[in-house]
Structures are given as structure tokens and as C-alpha cells.
């Protein structure tokens, strides 16, 4: 058995197990974002949105669709890895992987792959929900899909790092609640940062989520507050940094080995 095919089987096994996990508990994993999304569309899109009028030349509901989809992708990719990897530490079955001849990068790829898979499934479901409320027009499939996948990889990896450091179930909700959600809401899901005073526009530029939402919005609508290449470059940079950090954590056995 060649090394590569051994790794491939191991990767597929982890990925398959991850997909099975979130599919089994779809009521907790897939359904909630669909419901939340429908509520956002009804309240912000329909009821309030009609009074807001246009944003960046689009109907308000059309303007917020990209951000809302990406928001679900972000939180679900993150949540999948943080809860799955943390529970594998908590129940100790992470040891099944540690004793086996699986290199760290395959373990990481498997878990991140699981997060991306959930991001993808939720993204598709949420997009389908949005079709009930708007006529989704996709400006560029290539850019939309690229941003979608990259963002998902980025936050799945972030979720992995969170899980490595987590020592309790509280620790896996702290970051999503106090960091991720505010960054997403302030990342221009509901508004164009051009509405903000200069100072707050500058502050917003320090928020990485802003770049992703704008890049994604560009893919769907063709408008963005940020130059596309800058946004993509930053996302890739973040991904590389977080993956490298995760591999370092795994090699050191932080939170896993004594």
C-alpha cells in the first residue's frame, strides 16, 4: 500500500465521518441557519428593507443576500470543526487518530474538509431559501465559488484552532459569540461601509470579514467596497497563516498530548 493511497483513505475516512456527523444531527446543524435566514429575509428584507430603499444601487434585500449567505457559511464552517474536534478531545477519540499513522496535515485537512462540507451544504440551503425572496442573479460564478470556498476553509481552520485550545464547552462558544458574530455584523453584511463616517470606515478596514463579504458580494452582485484582488489576497494570506499555525499546534500536540 503506497503512502499516498494510505493517506487518501485516511483523509476520506475523516471527511466521511465528519459529513455523517453533521448530517445525522441536521436538525441542529442545517435547519437552524435556514430558519434564521428566512427570518432575516422577512424582517430585514421585506418589512424593513422596503422602507430603506436602495443600497449601492440595489434593492436592500438583494444587497444583504450575499452577506447573509456568507455569514451562514462562516459560522457553520467554524462551528462544525470547533464542536467536532473539541468533542473528539473531550471523548478522547482523537486518540484513534493519534495512534494511527496519519500525518498531522491529513488530520487537519480532514477536519477542515468537514467544515467546508458543512459550509457548502448550509450555503446551498441558505441560497435556496433566498431564492424565495429575491431573484438571485450571479455576476460571476468563478469568483462567487472561490470566495465561498476560501472563506469556508479560513473559518474551518479558525474553528480548529479554537478547539485545540478549548478546555470546556464554554470555550467553544466564547469566540463565536464575542468575536465572530460582532466581526460579521460589523463586516458590512447589512450596509455599505460608505455610509459610515470616515473614521469608522477606516476602523472597518481592519476587520477581515469585511473583505470576504465584499468579495462575495462582488461575485454575486458585481459591487464591492474593496478592490477584489486585495480581498482575495488577504483571505489567502489568512488561510496560509492559520493553517501553518494549526500544523504547529498539532505537531506540538497542544491540548492533545501530554
Amino acid at each position: 500500500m503506497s503512502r499516498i493511497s494510505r493517506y487518501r483513505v485516511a483523509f476520506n475516512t475523516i471527511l466521511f465521518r465528519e459529513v455523517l456527523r453533521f448530517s445525522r444531527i441536521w436538525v441542529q446543524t442545517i435547519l437552524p441557519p435556514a430558519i434564521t435566514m428566512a427570518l432575516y429575509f422577512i424582517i430585514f428584507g421585506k418589512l424593513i428593507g422596503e422602507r430603506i430603499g436602495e443600497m449601492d444601487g440595489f434593492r436592500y434585500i438583494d444587497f444583504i443576500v450575499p452577506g447573509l449567505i456568507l455569514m451562514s457559511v462562516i459560522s457553520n464552517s467554524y462551528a462544525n470543526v470547533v464542536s467536532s474536534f473539541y468533542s473528539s478531545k473531550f471523548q478522547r477519540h482523537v486518540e484513534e487518530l493519534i495512534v494511527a499513522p496519519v500525518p498531522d496535515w491529513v488530520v487537519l485537512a480532514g477536519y477542515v474538509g468537514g467544515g467546508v462540507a458543512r459550509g457548502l451544504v448550509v450555503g446551498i440551503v441558505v441560497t435556496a431559501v433566498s431564492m424565495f425572496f429575491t431573484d438571485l442573479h450571479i455576476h460571476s460564478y468563478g469568483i462567487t465559488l472561490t470566495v465561498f470556498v476560501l472563506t469556508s476553509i479560513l473559518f474551518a481552520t479558525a474553528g480548529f484552532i479554537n478547539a485545540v485550545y478549548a478546555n470546556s464547552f464554554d470555550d467553544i462558544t466564547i469566540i463565536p459569540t464575542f468575536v465572530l458574530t460582532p466581526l460579521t455584523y460589523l463586516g458590512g453584511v447589512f450596509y455599505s461601509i460608505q455610509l459610515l463616517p470616515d473614521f469608522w470606515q477606516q476602523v472597518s478596514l481592519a476587520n477581515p470579514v469585511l473583505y470576504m463579504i465584499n468579495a462575495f458580494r462582488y461575485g454575486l452582485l458585481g459591487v464591492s467596497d474593496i478592490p477584489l484582488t486585495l480581498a482575495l489576497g488577504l483571505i489567502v494570506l489568512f488561510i496560509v497563516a492559520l493553517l501553518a499555525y494549526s500544523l504547529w499546534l498539532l505537531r506540538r500536540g497542544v491540548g492533545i498530548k501530554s
Partner: protein
Amino acid sequence: MTALKLTDLRKVYGSGFEALKGIDLEVAEEDFFALLGPNGAGKSTAIGIISSLVNKSAGRVEVFGHDLDSDREAVQSCIGLVPQEFNFNQFEPVLEVVINQAGFYGIPRLEARRRAERYLKQLDLWDKRDSESRQLSGGMKRRLMIARALVHQPRLLILDEPTAGVDIEIRRSMWEFLRGINQQGVTIILTTHYLEEAESLCRHIGIINHGEIIEYSNMAELLRRLHLETFVLTLAEPVLVAPEIEGYPITRVDETTLEVIVAQERGINRLFAALDEHGIQVQSLRNKQNRLEQLFMDLLSEANALRRQEPCP
């Protein structure tokens, strides 16, 4: 060939606690080896290091000639581990636990399923294949971990207190199973609290205490070398004091009963000659049971105190 070789293996935990103080150990291929020691002796730490779960502080681990530092994956492929504590996903069905483990070792799913079926049947778990693993009884969970450890057909099977908390009947059938596996050529190392277990299963033994190997030999030799037999003598006539005989410590139990500790190599003939000289007639003699358990008690009396206290986990 040497299945396992440890050289000056040391572990200092983050807390500063020195759990292994430089142990050396060699286990031959196809051996059935017992690592015996009281709670906290460092058994699980040693096994954790061998199986990659714990980082060592110093020393060397070689498994079938592969060095853990330079060829970790080769070492990992050789080993099947049954850890001390349950460590499977509680919500995963039994069959999946085994198939997934095979997958981590690179065994394609179809083949993994075939093997999982074989081992689950052998371990009497096939009927439970679709149950979530948390629904199994303690003994079943142990057996599930054994099936999981065997699915990649390791050359070295390591079991960390596999029969702790398992009732006697299941324990015996587990012993039978392990003997069979060993006969097929799989080297087995187990740690245990049950002395009977080591005695009945193992050919070689290492005794570990406070992070040091204090005894290392084959089971028979260990018994021969260290085993002092105690004989109970019933006398024809009462005696007032125990006679003093060089090399044979004697205690008087009551007026017609004496107990003599006899080192095996001394034999018993000279004792009778000496008793004769003292004018003592022995009516009957019996061997007081004094086996490995007794020996172990001498070696590690503290261990036994712990063992009595300890409820089955």
C-alpha cells in the same frame, strides 16, 4: 527479532512530575509480556509513549527495529492499542468505530468492513454492530476496543489493563481469545492489576514501580528465583519453642504446628535432618499457598494496599 525495545526511557510531565525514570525493556517477537505494577507506577505513561499518545522526555523506543523518532508511521502501523480508558466516539455505532479505525490506517472501506465483521464476530459483538457504542456494557466496550485494535492486523498488540472491571467469566473468555491471537504470532504486551492474569497468560514479566523497572525476567524464573515457599509442619508431639535451624526461619504457630520458610534452592531434606537432630517428629507437611500474588506482595506491599482500596473502574 525484538518486538519492542525501550532504552533509558524518561518522562517528566508538564507538572514537573517524573513518571518514568529511565526504563529499559526488551520484548521478543511472539512473546506474551506482562507489565505489572501498582497504580501510578508509570505503566500507562510507558504505553502512551510507545503508542504516540504521550511525548517522551528522553530515551529511545524501537518497535520491530523501527525507531519512533525517525520512523513514527512504521512504528504506528505495527502497533494495536487497547487503552486503559474508553476512547471511542460514544455516539458512533459499533461497526463504524471499527471501520473508521481501519480507515485511519489506510485500509479501504470494503476491506475494512470485511475485517470489522470478522473481528466483531470473534469478539461476540456482531449482533451489536448497529448500536451506539455508549449503549454497550463495560465488557462489550473492552471487546470493542480489542476489535478496533486488531483491525489493521498489528504485529504488536498492547493492552492497558484490558480486564479491569470485567467480570470473571468474560475475563476468562478474553484470556482465551488473547492466547489464540498470541498463538497466531502476534506479540502481546499487557498491563494488569490482576496477578492471576499475568501468571496465567504471560511468559515474561516486568515489574514497574515509581517509574522504575524493579524486576524483569521470565515468569518461571521469577518464581524460582524469588519464590520462597512456606511449609506448614504438623508435629507428632508438642514443642514449647520453635527450634533454631540455620537457613530455615521457623515460627511456632501453636504447640504442634510450625511454619518454615524454605528457599527453593535449599531443598527440604536438610530441614528434616536438622529437625531430627532436635528430636522433632513431623507427622505431616503441607505447602502453604504462596504464589506470584505473595511474591508481588513482598515486592510491592504498598501496591497491594492500593489494590484492595481500588474499586473496579
